């Protein structure tokens, strides 16, 4: 291995390590900061208690600190990590599959489908619940996958999928579904602020249940993404070249689309539509570690988690005691950093 290649590997390792450290610090902050400040010492003690309760079955002391850290902030923190990782992974996969830097996790109608589901649930006051999950996550998840499946089916031509058709069908169907959503919102009588705050994305008030639902989906989607990382690299060269290099182009694309859709739907169903993470994080990761998806995907997942965790901390602080929708923060944090990187470094895309 030559010096430069070695340097590249060092750099990738350094970036991953740095992200882990930043994430660890962000996690501490997320447990400490909030409407009631919990000092680091208290947080560590409570986490220790929680761990002993989990592993050794020791009873948990019933203090307010325990409730705040273990029942409110910890699930919220886990969820922030999961949502960030899901969105960043889905975004990275979509950008590669569509060979389009503007692609994001919502490109196949995930967001419009989820929004329709959520708005129907909220405005029509639908009261269903499965295993404790309320109508909003259930209907937004179903809406997201339903619209994505419809986009996918409508773009089939002779058993093959063409990414350009897929992209345009996603846009067309997305606008139609958004129009329906707007219609329901305007004719409904509910308070629109709740709806709008969901549409901007928030993980406020989420519980362990949401973590249990979203985590397996991240695990499944993440494993598929990592296994398919090398074919994804080859797919960047175009369908025909990928085929000539021995990639099963159509089945690989199907698997990757399904994984990305699942990841995005999982994130949207528990957190609403958090923008920018899935668009910007893969770009930032690419600038930091290069285009190889075997490194890019884990880096994206970590960086996505970092961004959403930090954004969630800020969302609690900025207009305390009220909370900002997290999507506003991710846009404000992500955009300048992205522009900075774009101008500082020569980017992997030729103009």
């Amino acid at each position: 291995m030559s010096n430069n290649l070695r340097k590249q590997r060092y750099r990738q390792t350094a970036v991953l390590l740095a992200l882990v450290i930043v994430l660890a610090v962000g996690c501490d902050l997320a447990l400490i900061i909030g409407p009631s400040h919990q000092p680091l010492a208290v947080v560590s003690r409570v986490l220790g208690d929680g761990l002993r309760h989990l592993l050794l079955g020791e009873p948990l002391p019933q203090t307010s600190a325990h409730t705040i850290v273990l029942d409110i902030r910890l699930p919220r923190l886990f969820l922030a990590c999961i949502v960030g990782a899901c969105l960043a992974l889905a975004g990275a996969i979509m950008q590669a599959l569509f060979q389009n830097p503007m692609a994001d996790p919502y490109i196949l109608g995930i967001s419009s489908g989820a929004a329709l589901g959520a708005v129907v649930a909220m405005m029509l006051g639908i009261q269903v619940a499965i295993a404790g999950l309320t109508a909003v996550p259930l209907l937004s998840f179903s809406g997201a996958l339903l619209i994505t499946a419809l986009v996918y089916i409508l773009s089939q031509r002779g058993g093959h999928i063409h990414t350009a058709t897929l992209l345009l069908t996603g846009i067309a169907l997305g606008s139609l579904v958004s129009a329906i959503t707007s219609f329901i919102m305007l004719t409904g009588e509910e308070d629109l602020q709740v709806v709008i705050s969901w549409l901007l994305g928030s993980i406020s008030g989420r519980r362990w249940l949401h973590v249990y639902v979203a985590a397996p989906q991240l695990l499944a989607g993440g494993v598929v993404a990592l296994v398919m990382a090398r074919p994804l690299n080859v797919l960047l060269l175009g369908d025909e070249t990928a085929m000539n290099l021995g990639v099963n182009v159509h089945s690989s694309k199907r698997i990757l689309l399904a994984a990305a859709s699942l990841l995005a739907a999982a994130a949207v169903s528990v957190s609403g539509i958090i923008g920018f993470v899935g668009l910007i994080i893969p770009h930032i990761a690419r600038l930091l570690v290069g285009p190889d998806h075997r490194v890019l995907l884990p880096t994206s997942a970590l960086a996505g988690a970092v961004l959403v965790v930090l954004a969630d901390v800020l969302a609690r602080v900025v207009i305390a005691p009220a909370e900002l929708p997290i999507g506003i923060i991710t846009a404000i944090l992500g955009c300048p950093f992205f522009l900075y990187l774009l101008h500082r470094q020569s980017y992997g895309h030729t103009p």
Partner: protein
Amino acid sequence: MSQPQPDPEAPVLRAEGLYAAYDGTQVLCDVNLSVGVGAMLGIIGPNGSGKSTLLRCFAGTLKPTAGRVLLFDTDVATIPVRQRARLVAVVPQHTTTSFAFTVWDTVAMGRHAHLGLMQALTERDIRAVSSALEQTDCIHLADRLITELSGGELQRVIIARALAQEPQVLLLDEPTSHLDINHQLDIAALLGALNADRRLTVLWVTHDLNLASEFCERIVLLSNGHVAADGDPLEVITQRQLAAVYNTELTVMTNPLSGRPQVVITASKNEARR
């Protein structure tokens, strides 16, 4: 042209009654062709005569509408893509370099068909990549990003990626079309060497009649999806045949150094065009 003829009994590639079409437009009509081991075959013909289409059929990426392509006596359509990529490598006409992979990583993608999904490069793979880089004189480029290469360097890297597949057959679609004369000769000489040293079967689509005449042992002239001529350069590069197929006045002379036919153009002969 007293080269030892490849064994006609053992064709590497064979087109049998091949028809191909895009969206209903017929591109190839009843093409029959047999290519022996170690052949160095040039495919020439006017724009739209079906050269690239024929190559895509040979590569197995385009399904013929009728007839079939046999690769080592097996219908290429029935060979799984991974296995096919270990037998046939393709150097495409255009290479997009929108992602900043290093030259090493790019050439290593040629090993995809030899690797399991999660498998890292083995010693053998690394040797294949290094050897491909050496054969194409690209080893000094290994650390560079493909987005930073010149046209000639990029084309050599793409050929290296094809060689890393360790194929039996190399298909190239106009590999010299956007290169200057120095790099054209460079690539042509490289193909000649690969063919001579490794007995690699090379099928090479080109618009450069003179390059084909100098470097190929056999030339196939396509016209409107038919094989108009097939033979050694002396048989194919003739004034009469080229004038008919290309619908152009041109002169064929003999290269005094190689004894091979060379096409010469003059402005005066084509004054009628104005």
